[in-house]
């Protein structure tokens, strides 16, 4: 049995401005409708890096056949939302902030599949480590 396919389509070049309204689409394939237990679609930011990961959702919907939906959950669905002013996408030294559209598929067998598309919010330049107040720059002397 092949794994189900989850497709996510984001508009444009996956780089957006705060406050911009976007419409994104997702679709499930290669799975029988009767096997689908639930689908969760979300737009969220999360942190990656040295610390523990933080996460917060901007948009979340959980669709359960027979409860929230009567039709075929695999069909393409469009979600429209307005992006918030913060936090902006960030490539730092100890932490990075990623925005993504994520779809989770739960099968009746108990298996779970996840697909996400990362996008940029805002235009913050990447950070680099610098010397702080009173700190000395440690350089390794070149060996002759």
């Amino acid at each position, binding site marked *: 049995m092949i794994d189900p396919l989850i497709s996510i389509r984001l508009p444009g070049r996956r780089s957006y401005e*705060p*406050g911009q309204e976007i419409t994104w689409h997702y679709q499930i394939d290669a799975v029988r409708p009767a096997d689908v237990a639930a689908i*969760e679609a*979300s737009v*969220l930011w999360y*942190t990656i*890096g*040295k*610390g*523990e*990961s*933080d*996460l*917060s*959702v901007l948009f*979340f919907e*959980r669709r359960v056949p027979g409860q929230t939906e009567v039709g075929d959950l695999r069909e393409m669905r469009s979600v429209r939302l307005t992006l*918030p*002013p*913060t*936090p*902006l996408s*960030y490539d*730092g*030294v*100890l*932490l990075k*902030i990623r925005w993504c559209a*994520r779809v*989770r598929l739960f099968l009746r067998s108990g298996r779970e599949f996840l697909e996400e598309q990362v996008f940029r919010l*805002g*235009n*913050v*330049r990447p*950070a*680099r*480590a*610098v*010397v*702080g*107040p*009173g*700190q000395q720059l440690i350089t390794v002397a070149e060996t002759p």
Partner: protein
Amino acid sequence: MPKRFRIWVKKQGSRSTSARRVGEWGELAFFAIWFLLGLASLVYLLAAPLLFEETVPWELGGGRWLVLLVVSSFILLGGRGLVVTLLQIRASRERRSALAHNAARLASLPESDGDGPLMPTIPRGVNLTNSPGIRLAYRLPTSHHGAWEMLVACSFCIIWNALTLFLAREVWKGYAQGHAMPLAAVAVVPFLAIGVWSIRFFAVQLSRQARIGPTLVEISQQPLRTGQAFACFVSQSGSVTLKQFTVHLVCEEETTCHQGTDIRFDRQVVYHEEIARRENVELRSGQPLEIEIDSEIPPSFMHSFQAPHNAVVWKLVVRGEPHRGPLLERPFPIVVVPEDAPELEMAGTSHDRSAD
């Protein structure tokens, strides 16, 4: 791809090399056993006198309070762990976050229309804007609390030396009454040494506080925006000669993670600019050093960000290097929002203040 079961695993924070499901079910079993053990013990404690005639009747008092406390803690901690772990197993991280958002939104209904704060990851400290400045709009609070250090040093010095004096008096009394305690006398020596050290440490702290007076930092606007120019006023009082006195604009990343039972904290400077410098500064009583500074938050840089385990912190750091003695370093947090972010309502802000 993690294996289904490993005896030894590596773990940092919520990241682990073990199979997630195995860990979750293991945790569930652990809390379930804990909870059931507590429940069974409580039932036995209460029902035993009724079922078995030879058992002593249940009466509160003596050690029974302690037994009841321990059994209750088993039930409470085990039950809480069970519920939390069940929630984690049954709900995805996104779903839990959405549930938390909804709960927070419901909780904020009486004060607002239920939308919650517009930029929840921007710090909004009450103390950041509730103090008006004399020269500029806001006086910044410091995140360094010298008074607490003094209080801790003073308390430790008093308690430790009182204990040492009591011990020394008992040893002396023993010698005077003819039953000497040589081991106790030897034990008093390290107590005395630590007592002397604590007095010296307290004296140094006291002298430092007396010589280096309070630092006052005022700023023209709060929050600031990336790319925005701002004015700053720094006043340093005291009676000490400083080799150099500098003011820095700093941006730091801060992260925390759990390693076992430890909490590990990491910090990295990602932006640093010296915005003012004075050499050979003589601070005299009643004549504070006053500096007016014009600076700018760099454009396209990261804004202030505050999440439970990660943060981007902007601050002004005042630094003084005396000829001898400890360094003066006092940070003053500021809030930076993106250039085109909507107006941010800070806690305790009065709108007409910035127009002064």
